[in-house]
Each structure stands twice: as structure tokens, then as C-alpha cells.
């Protein structure tokens, strides 16, 4: 059971009212949230410090321009309290980053919600944004995941935030448009809400409902894993899927887990002398240029897949339309299982130590 603030206005307004109260009373110095930046619905993440500007926030918008954990890293450690409204997977991403000392929980109060999934950037940013979004919210009043969300979202079992200070029920909440309930999960949260005049009740999530969603998501996962051929980490299938990779490494740049400033695979270790390539050629009859396109994907799998929180950002930015995140999620799960490790579950949990032997993987190039 946890303390819950009940307000009889729709969830967004309720949250907004709460935030406005906190900000105007200097309980917090700012709010980090998705916000509308123009009339046709385009959103970005903003750090808002003026009460008036709070109106622009779109806390539950089903879009992920950037994985918010990146942003949280850049504004922490914060010297004054900041409320961050982010999606469950972004929260888990941030937890993983904090474990890697890429950010700090200090003065960050996280607000998250049961997530119905994220629409691909181009879907959300299309001209009939309004229509699409309202349909989305209609759908998630029930327990079905909308069809047009990111593939990984359909397969996501962690739609309930794990470590949020404040949780809001969105997915599966039929009263979403009439009531709002803010669950205060932590002392920090409860302390904040002290000064806020409102009705507070003891309540917990509707487990039945959540289980139902979970079941459907599990099914979705099965389906997804079937679709993407990989049944084992077999190389040929890999080559088939990643064959069209152009090596832009966009996937690693948007990945919340890939925090390296200089990716090993972009470092000088991998620019080969021409004689090496020529010698390679003498053994094969053809050699792909640039050589490491697929090697990179394998390498990345090894470096971070066990921490992959399946946000789907990589898949969205891939110019070649490779189902990157679906694969990473799949591979990641299998690796993580070895250590029964759930990425982003808990800041205290230690990252499974992994040895990488690059030699294990044959130099790639079909």
C-alpha cells in the first residue's frame, strides 16, 4: 500500500496542479518533462523553471525524441530538487546510467507512469498527430497495447515503473480523463506533498488489471521474437538482418546505455593498415568495406545488451530500418537471464561483470 493523492480532474491537469504548487512554492526548482513546442504537436524534453510555462508540458505524450536518461545525466547532480516526468524504460535507463556514474539521483524526484508504449517518431510527428494521439489514449484506457507503437513496446513487460518516487496510473486507467491519482512511493515524495492541500488515501495498483496487460505483453513478445528470425546467435541470420547496416552508429549514439564518449569501435584500434586488408583479401575472394559494419553490432551486443532496457530508440533512428532494438532486447534478455539481472530495477544492484574476448568472434566480412 502507498499514499495516493486523489484529485478530481483529469490526470494531466491533476499533475499540472501539483507541479504548479510545488514550483510556485519553491519546493522544487524545475520540472523536466515532455512539452509541446508547436501547434502541430511536436514535443521535446524541456527543463521548465517558470510556473506559466508548465502549461506546455505533455507528461504522457507517447513519444520519445530522446531517451530522457541522457538528459537527466546532463542535469545531475542537481543542486536543487527537480521533478523529472519520464517513461518507465527511461527511468530504468537512468538507473543503469547512475550505476555507471553517468548521473546522480541527488535532488531528482522521478515521476513515471504505467506506459502504453511509444509511437515511432515519424508516426507521432505526422500531420494528423492529434488524431493519432487521441486514438492512442482511447486504446490504452483498456488493456490492449496500440498496434502502431514501437515493436519493442508491444513486447515490453516492464510497463510499470520500478523505482519512481511518484507513479501515475495511465495504461489501463479508465478514469484517466476524469480523475488523477499520484502514488507517493517514497519518503522523498511524501515529504514533498506535505504542503499540498489535497485528499490523500491509501491505495495500491490493481494487480488483476496489470496481470492482464502483462499477459498480453508476454504474448506480444513471443510474436515479436518469432518475427525477427534470430533463434540463435547464428551469424548468417545476423548478416541477413544487419547486411544493410551503413555503419552510422546512430543506434549507439541514442542508446541510453552506450555512454562512452569515444566508442571503442570508432577508435583507432579498428582502422586497419591497407596491407592487412589486402592480406585478408588474399584469403577470401571478397571483402566488405568498411570492414566492421557487422562486427560493430556483435561487439555492441556484448558490451551492453545485458543492460538493454528495450526503449526502442535505436530502432527508430536506424536509417536502414533494421529492427535493432528488437534484436538487442532478445539477445539482451538471454544474456541478462544468465545473471538473473533486470536492467534498471535497482540502483544498488551491481552490473553483471562480463569478459569480452574479441577473438571469440571471427573477423567479419562476408
Amino acid at each position, binding site marked *: 500500500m502507498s499514499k495516493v493523492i486523489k484529485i478530481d480532474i483529469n490526470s494531466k491537469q491533476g499533475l499540472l496542479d501539483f507541479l504548479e504548487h510545488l514550483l510556485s512554492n519553491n519546493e522544487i526548482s524545475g520540472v523536466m518533462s515532455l512539452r509541446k*513546442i508547436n501547434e502541430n504537436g511536436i514535443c*521535446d524534453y*524541456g527543463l521548465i523553471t517558470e510556473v506559466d*510555462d508548465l502549461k506546455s508540458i505533455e507528461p504522457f505524450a507517447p513519444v520519445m525524441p530522446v531517451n530522457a536518461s541522457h538528459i537527466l545525466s546532463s542535469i545531475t547532480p542537481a543542486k536543487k530538487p527537480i521533478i523529472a516526468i519520464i517513461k518507465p524504460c527511461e527511468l530504468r535507463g537512468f538507473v543503469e546510467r547512475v550505476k555507471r556514474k553517468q548521473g546522480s539521483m541527488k535532488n531528482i524526484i522521478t515521476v513515471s507512469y504505467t506506459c502504453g508504449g511509444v509511437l515511432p517518431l515519424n508516426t507521432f510527428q505526422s500531420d494528423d498527430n492529434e488524431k493519432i494521439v487521441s486514438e492512442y489514449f482511447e486504446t490504452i484506457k483498456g488493456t490492449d497495447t496500440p498496434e502502431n507503437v514501437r515493436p519493442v513496446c508491444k513486447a515490453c513487460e516492464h510497463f510499470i515503473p520500478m523505482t519512481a518516487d511518484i507513479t501515475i496510473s495511465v495504461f489501463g486507467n479508465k478514469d484517466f480523463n476524469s480523475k488523477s491519482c499520484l502514488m507517493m512511493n517514497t519518503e522523498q515524495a511524501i515529504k514533498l506533498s506535505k504542503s499540498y492541500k489535497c485528499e490523500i488515501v491509501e491505495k495500491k495498483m490493481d494487480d488483476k488489471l496489470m496481470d492482464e496487460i502483462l499477459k498480453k505483453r508476454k504474448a506480444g513478445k513471443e510474436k515479436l521474437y518469432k518475427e525477427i528470425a534470430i533463434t540463435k546467435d547464428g551469424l548468417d541470420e545476423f548478416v541477413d538482418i544487419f547486411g544493410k547496416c551503413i555503419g552510422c552508429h546512430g543506434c549507439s549514439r541514442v542508446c541510453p546505455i552506450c555512454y562512452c564518449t569515444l566508442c571503442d569501435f570508432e577508435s583507432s584500434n579498428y582502422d586497419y593498415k591497407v596491407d592487412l586488408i589486402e592480406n585478408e583479401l588474399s584469403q577470401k575472394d571478397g571483402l566488405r568495406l568498411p570492414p566492421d559494419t557487422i562486427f560493430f553490432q556483435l561487439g555492441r551486443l556484448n558490451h551492453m545488451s545485458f543492460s538493454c532496457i528495450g526503449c526502442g530508440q535505436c530502432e527508430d533512428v536506424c536509417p536502414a530500418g533494421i529492427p535493432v532494438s528488437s534484436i538487442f532486447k532478445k539477445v539482451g534478455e538471454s544474456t541478462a537471464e544468465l545473471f538473473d539481472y533486470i536492467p534498471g530495477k535497482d540502483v544498488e544492484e551491481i552490473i553483471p561483470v562480463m569478459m569480452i574476448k574479441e577473438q571469440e568472434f571471427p573477423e567479419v566480412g562476408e
Partner: protein
Amino acid sequence: MEKKDFTPKIIGFLCNWCTYAAADQAGALKKEISPNFSVIRVMCSSRIDHNLLLTTFFNGADGILIAGCHPGDCHYDKGNYYARRRYALLKDVMKTLNLEPERLELSWISAAEGKKYSEFVNKFSEKIKKLGPSPINESKLF
């Protein structure tokens, strides 16, 4: 455009050997210099790169002045010629994108030209004041 209460923030990157010396001489001559103008000392105008200029603009500078030795007088032989090219390029880009290129300025001021320094700097500050605050500082988008 001009606001009553607007005090522009202007950064001047001055080369150590000529213009910074000129700034000192302006002091010795007790010339008045606009307090909106802040001096950053570099060894040579050729140290100033696009990243530095952009960072300065995007962190709230309303104007930037690059000033160094006259062409031919560079303490490091040819540095200011390169500075001039880099400046020209960025200025051209700003012009093409209509990003108020007049906010970026280059001038040659020698160590003996304390008077010229004060006049130029104040003139520049006035110009920027007229231009009003850089839109970049107003934007809540970045």
C-alpha cells in the same frame, strides 16, 4: 527592438601582444570603456575557433569581437591571417542563415592604439545595444 533595460553581454577575444596591450593602454589613458564588454585574453587571434565562437554565442553572448595584431605584425608570424579566414567563414555562414552576422566582428588594433580600441569597443557595444538581445538568449528551446 531596443529595450530600455537591455544591457548587452559582449565578449572580446583579444590577442595578448597587440590588442590586449591596447586595452591596457586605453586604461592608462583613462578612456571610458563600456562595462558590457568583457575581455578574454588569448595568445593569438588564431587560437579562436568556430567551436569557441559558437559556444560563446549559444551561451548568451549578444556580440563577439575578435581583435589582434595588424596583418603582417603577428607575434607568431602569420596567425592573424588564418584567424581572418576562419572569421570570414563563420561570418559567411551566419550571413547565409541570417543569424545577425553583425554580432560577430573582427578588427586589427595594435598595442599603440589605445584610443582606437576604446572608440571601436564603445562603438561596437552601442551597435549591439541597438540590435537588442540576441534571439538565442530569449529562446527556451535550447
